[in-house]
């Protein structure tokens, strides 16, 4: 009886986590470069009350035993790295990766972060930086007299200086990809960090060795599918309700037991 109380409680906790994850997905439905997450669960260990095949009290073999499970546990919030929708912005430093790959940014502490959000701008020194001021890695600086910036599909950045007719190359964007992107750690601000599970980053130029192309003037919106999220929200909420009913039933059983002896 106490078992079912705690089993139902673990169920309620799991459904609560699922609602938390879904809420985060819905909250980030318009976040550039956001990748949706999914809560994953596994059943907890089982208590073996009677093994199948054991001799019964009457000397016969029990055809199937009794196993009572002890609930559910969350194991992972799996990120789904499918491509989000593209939004046409016309801004020359809004970039999108069509395919596999992350932009590399160097953080103030010297580590490298990875992002799908290509909302770049220039700082006062002409460095290409993300909205938090983290520069691209390797750094690319645009001279102050540049009038037009062109980013090619292979990541080459060309500028046109006033009074000149031929564009000049100022740098190339390098992308990184991971064998297990689901193992990346989300640290907020649209950034991911490499972990032992994701493996080391494999860097390369866009449009080569499996990396995606770069498109200028576009942004990648989140890959959250709002209909799926709402359907999952309903499932999670109803499962939560039903688990709470199991808590009530366990409580009622204890109550009748206590009332047995006046």
């Amino acid at each position, binding site marked *: *009886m106490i*078992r*079912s109380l705690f*089993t*139902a409680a*673990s*169920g309620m906790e*799991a459904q609560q986590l*699922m609602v938390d994850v879904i809420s985060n997905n819905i909250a980030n439905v318009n976040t550039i470069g956001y990748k949706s997450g*999914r809560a*994953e*669960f*596994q*059943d*907890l*260990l*089982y208590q073996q009350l*009677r093994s*199948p095949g054991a001799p*019964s009290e*009457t*000397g*016969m073999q*029990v*055809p*199937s*035993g*009794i196993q*009572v*499970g*002890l*609930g*559910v546990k969350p*194991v*992972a919030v*799996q990120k*789904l*790295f*499918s491509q989000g929708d593209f939004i046409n912005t016309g801004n020359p430093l809004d970039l999108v990766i069509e395919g*596999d790959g992350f932009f590399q940014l160097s953080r103030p502490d010297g580590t490298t972060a990875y992002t799908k959000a290509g909302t770049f701008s220039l700082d006062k020194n002409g460095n290409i930086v993300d909205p938090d001021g983290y520069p691209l890695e390797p750094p690319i600086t645009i001279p102050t007299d540049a009038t037009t910036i062109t980013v090619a599909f292979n990541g080459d950045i060309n500028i046109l200086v006033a009074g000149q007719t031929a564009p000049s190359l100022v740098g190339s964007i390098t992308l990184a990809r991971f*064998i*297990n992107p*689901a193992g990346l750690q989300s640290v907020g601000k649209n950034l991911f960090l490499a972990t*032992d*599970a*994701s*493996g*080391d980053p494999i860097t390369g130029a866009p449009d080569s060795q*499996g990396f995606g192309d770069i498109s200028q003037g576009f942004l990648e919106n989140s890959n959250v599918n709002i209909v799926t999220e709402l359907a999952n929200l309903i*499932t*999670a909420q109803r499962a939560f309700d*039903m*688990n709470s009913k*199991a808590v009530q*039933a366990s409580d009622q*059983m204890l109550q*009748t*037991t206590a*009332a*047995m002896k006046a």
Partner: protein
Amino acid sequence: MYKGIYVAMTGAMLRSQELDNVTQNMANANTAGYKRTSFSSRLYPLLEGVTDKQNTVYPNAKAMAYFGQSSIDTTDGVVQMTGNPLDLACRGDGFFAVQGVGANIYYTRNGSFSRSKDGILVDGTGQQVLDTANKPIRIIGSQIQVEADGTVYADGNNSGKIKLVKLDPSTVQHMGNSLFSGTEAGTSGGQILEGSIEMSNVNPIREMVGIISALREFEVAQKVITNFDNLAEKTVTEIAKV
């Protein structure tokens, strides 16, 4: 004293066990690949020293008791599309075989797989998914495609074939962590669906009815025990009054 009171007691205990079971199914309503446990009980006579007569009529029974048994319902769960190429749902009687390093082989229907940093196909707890030769599957490449028969292609190259086994139904047991143990009974004719996940086969209506019936039958058994108690009380206080 009264043998009926013990029959009612075992009945009540069993109903509480049944509730444990129903609750477990409910708690795992959103666990991928979970298979519901069904619970059944029957009344057995306990014969005094006459074991071979248990299936005959029981006039000599000195006591009776309820015994429960649980079995795993391996019917297919609902398939949910996810779009993740390494989410694999299995249709039919197959199980995926997984193995931790140097550990036993277990079976699972939770096909939420990913690649380890070495490119090896692993499940949610890092156990390796086995191919038809019981070896781990290494997938190197960015375009991954899994055929219905389990053959994995990465950038067009064949990387191995995922093993799908049939398990002898009477040996299937829950091990926790979405794993099952059991005896292999040949290859399965089941099919793999890429980009989908098999959810649990828990039916909420059936489980809610299970809660109600377990609770009410429990109360009935308690009532019977209370009645026996009243009977005993009367025996002591009223009959003895003479």
